[in-house]
């Protein structure tokens, strides 16, 4: 792998940019790997990357039925934060946020991490108490957040209307080190780094079956033939249930559509991320100037990667009051992704009833921010059989009643 640098740009400029390598190879699958990761989205690629980097397991294939980062990795609103109430969540999301800070240097790939700050508006008395509680919890967890006044909100976001008649802004939970990153670049950067370690990123290769023998995984059947493996990581978000069924176990997961949309580009007007959970909309401005807007999920199971139109209307209507400036913006694009929701709205990073199969799913509506932390922890779980970061996220916590109940903590999907 040739390193990217200012010098490399100068060198290539002198020879008409003919010397760039492909960022990753596209090999045919080998007969056998030490580990196979199903799903070349952010979480799958990060898992493979840290398997190689932290544990020296480099005979790894990452199988992807579509194209790299073409699922939820390329469909989210790119928000990164770690202001969670529950300790296990704060630990893994804060790990992820801190890894994002050095990711561009680590991968030698610019992921455009922008720690511009994330603000969660308190628009009811209930939310004030909730976010103050979260701010206190974050202090104990070592996550830097603070509860700020409406005046400070207005200073940070001049375009906001804090005196809305229905939902005035009463304060906000402010995480100054949260922000955004270029989501595609995260997938591409990890894929390039994995490929450079000798791992095989195999696209357009759908897993059609999981082969087991005596309760242990021995390989997978794919559209490119059978491949053997010692360990199998299933990291396929919305399609986790489908794959678990092939492997012979069930997951407490339902798949729903979540949408996002962007406006036409406008001049820079908001340099933080704002989330309004009572009215349920969130917004940031991309480097291109588009206002990036997200809202809630549909209520019913859906695999179509497009959502219901009335949710767009609800989200935009809700944000209009708080941001009157957007009321005449034209919306440019809208898209949907399939999110995998668990009963407590927290992820599952776990061993499974089949020996050698590990599952990483259930990130629901908030997976992008967790990608490096999730990969870091999942790699540890696969390599060592135990990780302190994944311990509480076992798939058996539902039977034991040990929920990580962020849905109650956040009041909405998160």
């Amino acid at each position: 792998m040739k390193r990217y640098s200012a010098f490399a740009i100068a060198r290539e400029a002198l020879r008409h940019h003919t010397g760039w390598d492909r960022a990753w190879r596209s090999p045919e699958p080998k007969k056998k790997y030490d580990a196979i990761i199903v799903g070349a989205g952010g979480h799958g690629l990060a898992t493979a990357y840290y398997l190689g980097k932290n544990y020296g397991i480099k005979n790894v294939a990452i199988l992807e039925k579509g194209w790299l980062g073409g699922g939820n990795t390329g469909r989210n609103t790119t928000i990164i934060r770690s202001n969670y109430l529950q300790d296990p969540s704060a630990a893994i999301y804060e790990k992820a946020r801190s890894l994002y800070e050095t990711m561009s240097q680590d991968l030698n790939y610019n992921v455009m991490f922008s720690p511009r700050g994330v603000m969660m508006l308190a628009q009811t008395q209930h939310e004030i108490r909730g976010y103050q509680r979260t701010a206190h919890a974050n202090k104990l967890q070592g996550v830097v957040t603070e509860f700020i006044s409406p005046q400070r909100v207005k200073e940070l976001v001049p375009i906001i209307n804090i005196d809305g008649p229905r939902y005035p802004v009463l304060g906000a939970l402010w995480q100054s080190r949260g922000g955004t990153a270029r989501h595609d670049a995260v997938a591409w950067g990890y894929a390039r780094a994995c490929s450079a370690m000798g791992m095989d990123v195999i696209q357009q290769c759908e897993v059609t079956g999981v082969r087991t023998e005596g309760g242990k995984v021995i390989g997978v059947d794919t559209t490119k033939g059978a491949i053997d493996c010692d360990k199998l990581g299933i990291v396929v978000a919305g399609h986790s249930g489908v794959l678990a069924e092939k492997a012979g176990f069930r997951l407490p997961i339902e798949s729903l559509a979540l949408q996002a949309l962007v406006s036409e580009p406008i001049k820079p007007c908001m340099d933080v991320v704002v989330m309004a959970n009572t009215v349920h909309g969130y917004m940031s401005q991309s480097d291109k100037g588009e206002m990036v807007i997200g809202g809630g999920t549909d209520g019913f199971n859906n695999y179509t990667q497009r959502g219901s139109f009335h949710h767009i209307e609800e989200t935009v209507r809700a944000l209009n009051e708080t941001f009157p400036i957007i009321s005449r913006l034209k919306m440019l694009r809208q898209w949907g992704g399939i999110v995998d929701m668990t009963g407590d709205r927290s992820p599952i990073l776990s061993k499974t009833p089949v020996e050698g199969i590990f599952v990483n799913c259930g990130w629901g509506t908030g997976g992008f921010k967790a990608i490096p932390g999730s990969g870091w922890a999942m790699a540890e779980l696969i390599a060592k059989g135990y990780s302190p970061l994944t311990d509480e996220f076992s798939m058996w916590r539902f039977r034991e009643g040990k929920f990580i109940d962020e849905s109650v903590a956040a009041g909405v999907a998160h």
Partner: protein
Amino acid sequence: MLTLQCPYCGVDAEETELTAGGEAHLKRETVGAGDEAFEGYLFMRENPKGLHFERWRHSYGCGKWFLAARDTGTLEVFGTYPAQSKEPPLELRDKISAKRPGWSWREFK
């Protein structure tokens, strides 16, 4: 927009008029059931990409709960039937068989 016909009042109800209620034909576990049975009842859900049976409520209409057969991969609706049904009616199952030969969902086929 997703449209389901309410089997009680006969209205073709749009999605905004309805509330989704999750998986249909769940067996309610109660005192004496084991941990696994309770876990299944409370958290484990069918999540197929394809034919699915669901509960819906005609919230902004007659208010009744009913059941529906729908494809989660295409959003095609096969039909709706009353909530008091122990299993999908034969007529509906035949209709599904015509379009999805050899279908199965939990214990039904």
